[in-house]
């Protein structure tokens, strides 16, 4: 009998076997906890204050949202270098639409402009994906062209002028919060949905006569999740509005991140499309011989990244209350770094959405902590680069050990 890929040695190995979460993701979660504690000590408790954690959560949201799609693209052995530039184009286009075509403050303005950038983003992504998949150009080159072109396309929309202001309702997508009550509702919903999925899995295994994992293990997993979610909601609720006792609750961009993480995890691991993405990444020829529409699968993965970039553009422009040409600079590299740090292999075939969000959180934690410590911004980027190198090195060792 062959041994499984993840050995049983060590605490992390055993935790992997129990929870089914990738070893590298668990290692990064451990690194995240260590980083948080170290920063908290060094900043005399400032790091783990509700205010800072609230800001950290908002800062993580855009990179986290886009990285859930980037994982799929990288799993298909492709890359998307265009997201930062595309975010600028989409942000400017959306802002231009709501200011100059629709009317700021009109009832439909916010959702029409969101729908518009979503469709536009998906189309831009699909175009890059179609060139990659159907014409057979390397995605590195196609999206490098996108990196060069999209921001300039944004310049053409306004001749370089910054669009401002942003519709007030639309502005809530940047720094609005959902309030204390809704935060608890979201927290409860997360726990209930995960518990329902676990129960559904147990039921479907019982239906075909398979043994299930011990009940205590599933209950313990739900309990851990519940503890984390409750702590998170409580922290967000503890950050109050200035000169008041009213808690803000979970920021809107973070709610969006949570919903997207859930949807994308579902797509990635519980649908045919997700299975095709991973199988294609593992062996493109096998996928083709199995009769899978591989080109369409690759194109859709790029379209998803485009749509998620549109959501990133909405959040970023809403936070700034403006759409300057400069938004999204180096965003593609932060997103790719989040994926890789979260265990996505650049060789394709492996990577998880949960891991990418952990990766995004780890990067933002380091940046946030360094800011609190007063480290200059040049140094912050160097640290970010080091973390990326370390993560890729980790992946190289991991891949070698698997052989």
């Amino acid at each position, binding site marked *: 009998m062959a041994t499984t890929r993840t050995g049983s040695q060590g605490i992390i190995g055993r935790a992997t076997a129990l929870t089914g979460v990738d070893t590298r993701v668990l290692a990064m979660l451990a690194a995240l906890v260590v980083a948080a504690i170290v920063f908290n000590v060094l900043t005399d408790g400032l790091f783990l204050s509700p205010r800072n954690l609230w800001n950290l959560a908002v800062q993580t949201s855009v990179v986290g949202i886009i990285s859930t799609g980037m994982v799929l693209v990288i799993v298909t052995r492709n890359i998307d270098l265009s997201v930062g530039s595309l975010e600028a184009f989409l942000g400017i286009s959306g802002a231009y639409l709501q200011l100059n075509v629709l009317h700021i403050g009109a009832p439909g303005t916010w959702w029409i402009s969101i729908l518009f950038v979503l469709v536009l983003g998906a189309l831009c992504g699909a175009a890059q994906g179609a060139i990659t998949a159907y014409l057979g150009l390397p995605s590195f080159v196609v999206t490098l062209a996108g990196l060069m072109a999209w921001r300039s396309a944004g310049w053409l929309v306004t001749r370089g002028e910054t669009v401002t202001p942003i519709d007030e309702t639309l502005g809530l997508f940047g720094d609005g919060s959902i309030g204390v009550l809704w935060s608890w509702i979201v927290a409860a919903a997360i726990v209930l949905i995960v518990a329902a999925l676990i129960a559904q899995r147990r039921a*479907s295994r019982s239906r*075909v006569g398979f043994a299930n994992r011990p009940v205590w293990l599933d209950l313990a997993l739900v309990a851990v999740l519940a503890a984390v979610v409750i702590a998170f909601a409580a922290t967000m609720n503890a950050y109050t509005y200035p000169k008041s006792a009213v808690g803000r609750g979970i920021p809107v961009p973070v709610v969006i991140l949570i919903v997207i993480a859930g949807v994308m995890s579902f797509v990635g691991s519980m649908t045919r499309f997700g299975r*095709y993405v991973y*199988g*294609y990444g*593992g062996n493109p020829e096998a996928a083709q*011989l199995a009769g899978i529409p591989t080109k369409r699968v690759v194109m859709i993965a790029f379209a998803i990244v485009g749509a998620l970039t549109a959501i990133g553009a909405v959040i970023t422009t809403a936070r700034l209350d403006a759409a300057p040409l400069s938004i999204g600079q180096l965003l593609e590299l932060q997103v790719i770094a989040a994926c890789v740090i979260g265990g996505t292999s650049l060789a394709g075939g492996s990577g998880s959405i949960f891991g990418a969000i952990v990766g995004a959180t780890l990067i933002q934690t380091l940046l946030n902590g360094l800011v609190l410590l007063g480290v200059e911004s040049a140094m912050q980027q160097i640290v970010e680069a080091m973390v990326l190198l370390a993560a890729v090195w980790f992946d190289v060792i991991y891949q070698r050990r698997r052989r």
Partner: protein
Amino acid sequence: MTVDAPLVQMRGISKRFGGVHAVEDMNLTLYAGEVLGLLGHNGAGKSTLMKILAGAYPLDEGEITVSGSSVQISSPRDAKRVGIEAIYQTLALADNLSATANIFFGREIVNRFGMLDEARMERDAMSVVQRLNPHFQNFHAPVGSLSGGQRQAVAIARTLQFNAKIIIMDEPTAALGPHETQMVGNLIRQLKSEGIGIIMISHDLHDVFDLSDRVSVMKNGRHVWTGRVADTTKDQVLEMIILGKLPDGSYAPGVVSDFG
């Protein structure tokens, strides 16, 4: 459609890549419950012919009938629809996916919400794999971590799961040790007894003579000879493969190269 119609009949098959005639006017017949060994040098056109049958390459000329009715095969999906499955030399498995996911790759079972029904797929995978190899347990591990014989069993199970009537095996034993080769041999005999027709491409004359009922020899993309294993010898077959020289001492038309 008659009862005794051959399972597969390929007639006048031609395939060109640019100016190169990979397969030229090739005929091949396969009956239910038999193993047909397809022999020839590298580049003789065996793999091309099989890829045509499996839908990986479209044919330029010729006709294919399955159980007596003419079929159009222009994609792997078309081939699967008429019960033709291929196991390639590389096995064409996604190493990062589990045995279950590989067996159902491209034909996943979903529930009414469009969610993958993992439990049902695992149960079905189990019953089909254990028909081949009762000791097989590793349904969750990525197939990249399995042994050559286990991977071969997964690849074969992939074809059986969907009631293949015709299985094409490209070098099924080339990458295997003696024990695993024997295991695959047993698998092939079992499939045969279930009435499945098997076309086996192999370089190993010993295996071919051991497992096949009939052999077909190709050279330079053309048909040389087809006949029962019992009616020929390894030496004669070698002469056909290398020289295109038939058992009666003549040469097959169109296959003799300048060196012949």
